[in-house]
């Protein structure tokens, strides 16, 4: 399962729930606040419990200090490259330890990271800022934009030079045949199949406004992950997709960019977005970054993108080549600067290596394989341990109290329906950090339901006569639980833990979107680069790990369960 499809299925339930509410379904209305309250309580309790130790053991993800600068980037090629360019440019000032947290999910996640201080700067686009983040009436009014940002404690540089606007594109040959050159021409072809990114579909500056402006007849465009759309249009599965106007794939797949003849799309000038005060905190670094203003025009950006996506160069190499030609103040080599400069951000360096056009086996067992495996195992098993430690007592509580059962199960079920990226964005804002901690928390929350439900069901399935026999024998409450009830429910509990573990292996791939590593890094990179080899090099080990976890739990069952109980708990 890819991140994209999981994302959309998770989204479906809340939407339906909201629809039901809007329709005034009797009974539902009153319960929602209580359920929400229960979830908040669970979230708060677990987060508080989990926060302290994780904070101490995660120096790499500490909040940026006075002399540190953390650069963020979103999850697509251009953003990765720009993140590396910004990192290298900032390093050249020799003032601060600079680090790059690459591929942070979508706009919501980088925004949460920036505002909370988990990152200091990233490249954003004026159109996204004006329409999506600030909801300004006139997206091309630069003064209004600066003023609105200032009120939120944010500031932008002058444009870097290129305008990466959204655009619609279709295969050039098909466009020629249908005589489509402008977006308004699409209105005459309602049978065309549209595939748009989820973000584009939902954004105010995306599909809803575009459709109204042009009176387009397409009711239900298909939601697609950005990197997957090009494969789909090349395979003839889609006719029209949204693109970024600097996408390298436009030329690679011979697409025609349709003219925005009614001027819907605002300018998407790339700018550096940071919190107010960066200039005072790191004046030399800030000055160095301003060198980037006006330096990257449309053709330059397209060619940088193409070098990564088509040429298979690493993001770091592409960025290094560009930065080397900038007229930066001579502060010695970047490595000599700041006394403690970090090596190139690992994910980007690794992703770059992996993106070369190489065999699957070579990509699979690349140098980063052990690190990714280690990270993935930590993600899966650390969160699973927390789910077990919290979930089993919750399940015991549920089995003992019908009231608790109703509310706790409702709460942990509802957690399941929160889209993973939404949950991650919320957790980043809550913790004011990205990386392992929010990822582990999300996995922990998603892991609760099978464990709580199976523990509760396992305990409830114990015949009343056996419970009575244990009471009548004169065993204390705790002895009954430990010697009789939990052992009898152990098969069901193990099955629940196994389900959680297997689901965790898959869900843990989203951790890469917030810089927590794991096999998801390859999946995210593969999607960003539209590179099936890299994608598979992430997806295959994740699948193998899921099978291994399944086998591990089978073995565990054989060891832990007394012989008479082994049959029941099967697979």
């Amino acid at each position: 399962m890819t991140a994209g499809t999981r994302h959309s299925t998770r989204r479906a339930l809340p939407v339906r729930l909201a629809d039901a509410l809007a329709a005034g379904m009797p009974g539902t209305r009153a319960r929602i606040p209580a359920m929400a309250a229960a979830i908040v309580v669970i979230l708060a309790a677990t987060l508080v419990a989990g926060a302290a130790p994780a904070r101490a053991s995660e120096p790499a993800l500490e909040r940026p200090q006075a002399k540190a600068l953390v650069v963020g980037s979103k999850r697509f090629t251009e953003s990765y490259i720009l993140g590396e360019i910004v990192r290298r440019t900032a390093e050249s000032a020799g003032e601060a330890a600079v680090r790059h947290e690459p591929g942070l999910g979508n706009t919501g996640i980088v925004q949460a990271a920036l505002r909370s201080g988990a990152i200091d700067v990233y490249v954003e686009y004026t159109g996204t800022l004006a329409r999506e983040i600030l909801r300004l009436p006139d997206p091309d009014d630069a003064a209004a934009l600066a003023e609105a940002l200032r009120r939120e404690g944010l500031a932008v540089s002058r444009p870097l030079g290129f305008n990466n606007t959204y655009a619609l594109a279709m295969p050039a040959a098909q466009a020629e045949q249908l005589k489509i050159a402008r977006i308004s021409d699409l209105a005459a072809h309602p049978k065309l199949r549209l595939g748009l990114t989820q973000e584009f579909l939902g954004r105010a500056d995306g599909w809803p406004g575009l459709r109204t402006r042009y009176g387009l007849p397409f009711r239900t465009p298909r939601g697609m992950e950005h990197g997957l759309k090009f494969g789909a249009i090349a395979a003839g599965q889609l006719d029209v997709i949204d693109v970024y106007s600097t996408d390298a794939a436009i030329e690679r797949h011979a697409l025609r960019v349709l003219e925005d003849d009614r001027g819907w799309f605002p300018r998407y000038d790339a700018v550096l977005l940071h919190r107010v005060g960066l200039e005072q905190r790191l004046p030399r670094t800030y000055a160095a970054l301003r060198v980037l203003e006006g330096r990257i025009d449309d053709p330059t950006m397209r060619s940088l993108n193409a070098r990564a996506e088509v040429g298979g160069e690493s993001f770091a190499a592409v960025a290094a080549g560009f930065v080397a030609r900038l007229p930066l103040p001579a502060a010695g080599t970047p490595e000599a600067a700041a006394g403690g400069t970090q090596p190139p951000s690992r994910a980007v360096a690794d992703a770059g290596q992996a993106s070369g056009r190489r065999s699957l086996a070579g990509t699979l067992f690349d140098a980063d394989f052990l690190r990714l495996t280690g990270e993935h195992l930590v993600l899966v098993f650390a969160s699973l341990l927390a789910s077990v430690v919290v979930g089993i007592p919750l399940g015991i509580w549920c089995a003992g109290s019908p009231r608790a059962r109703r509310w706790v199960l409702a709460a942990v079920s509802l957690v399941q329906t929160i889209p993973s990226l939404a949950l991650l964005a919320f957790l980043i804002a809550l913790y004011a950090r990205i990386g392992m901690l929010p990822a582990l928390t999300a996995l922990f929350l998603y892991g609760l339901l099978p464990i709580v439900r199976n523990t509760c069901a396992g305990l409830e399935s114990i015949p009343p006569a056996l419970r009575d026999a244990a009471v009548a024998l004169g065993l204390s409450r705790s002895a009954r639980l430990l010697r009789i009830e939990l052992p009898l429910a152990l098969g069901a509990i193990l099955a629940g833990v196994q389900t959680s573990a297997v689901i965790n292996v898959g869900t843990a791939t989203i951790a890469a979107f917030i810089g927590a590593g794991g096999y998801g890094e390859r999946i995210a990179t593969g999607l960003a680069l539209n590179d099936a080899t890299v994608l598979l090099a992430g997806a295959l080990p994740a699948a193998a790990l899921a099978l291994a976890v399944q086998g591990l739990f089978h073995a565990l069952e054989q060891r832990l369960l007394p012989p008479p109980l082994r049959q029941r708990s099967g697979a």
Partner: protein
Amino acid sequence: MIEVRGLSRSFGGKVALAPLTARFGRGRVSVLLGPSGCGKSTLLRLLIGLVEPDAGSVEIDGIPLGPGTVMALRHRTGYVIQDGGLFPHLTARDNITLLARHLRWDELRIRRRLAAVTELARIDPRLLAQYPSTLSGGERQRIGIARALLPDPPLLLCDEPLSALDPITRDDLQRELKDLFGALGKTVLWVTHDLHEAAALGDDILLMRAGELVQRGSLSDLLDRPADPFVTRFVRAQHAVPAERSR
């Protein structure tokens, strides 16, 4: 000795046990007899603290049954139910010794006591390593009885312990248990719906109907001096011909 005073219990408006006052003598076997739902099992469950009474009191060997004493009284009481009530995840041995291990008896004492009750319940020691699911119904019941006897309790509560067994096994066990209880001098309350079983076990029979005690006496009392037409009907329905009386 068990003293029951005004003990009653209803479930959702339905009377399970109407206020009952009775006394059960030390070292005697008393049989609670009656059709299903007559309140005989409820009485046993009240005595072991599985059910709280609505009113009334219970005193066992001078100790009033209450929250502070119920645990100690349970350790002085053996409770035997249909099919033994064995825990399926424990071997026969672990079922028998569970309470002793919970009470942290020393190993030697557990081993001695296990040997004693295994012999009393006539259990083949080779069965001790088996799990309940691999034992026959009669074997399971013997294990259940051995488990109840382990702490050498002065009181035994038996809730239809033999009703899941085939007639031959059942007949053997009845005879054996009667002798065993007699030899050990246990106070026994035995619940059954079977007149033959009641007659085989003792001469103190309490016939119950719909939560009420109808008549208490020996089998011949029930046959010759029925307290009420229900007694006659109950006895006739079970073909309790006088000639069959085992006394």
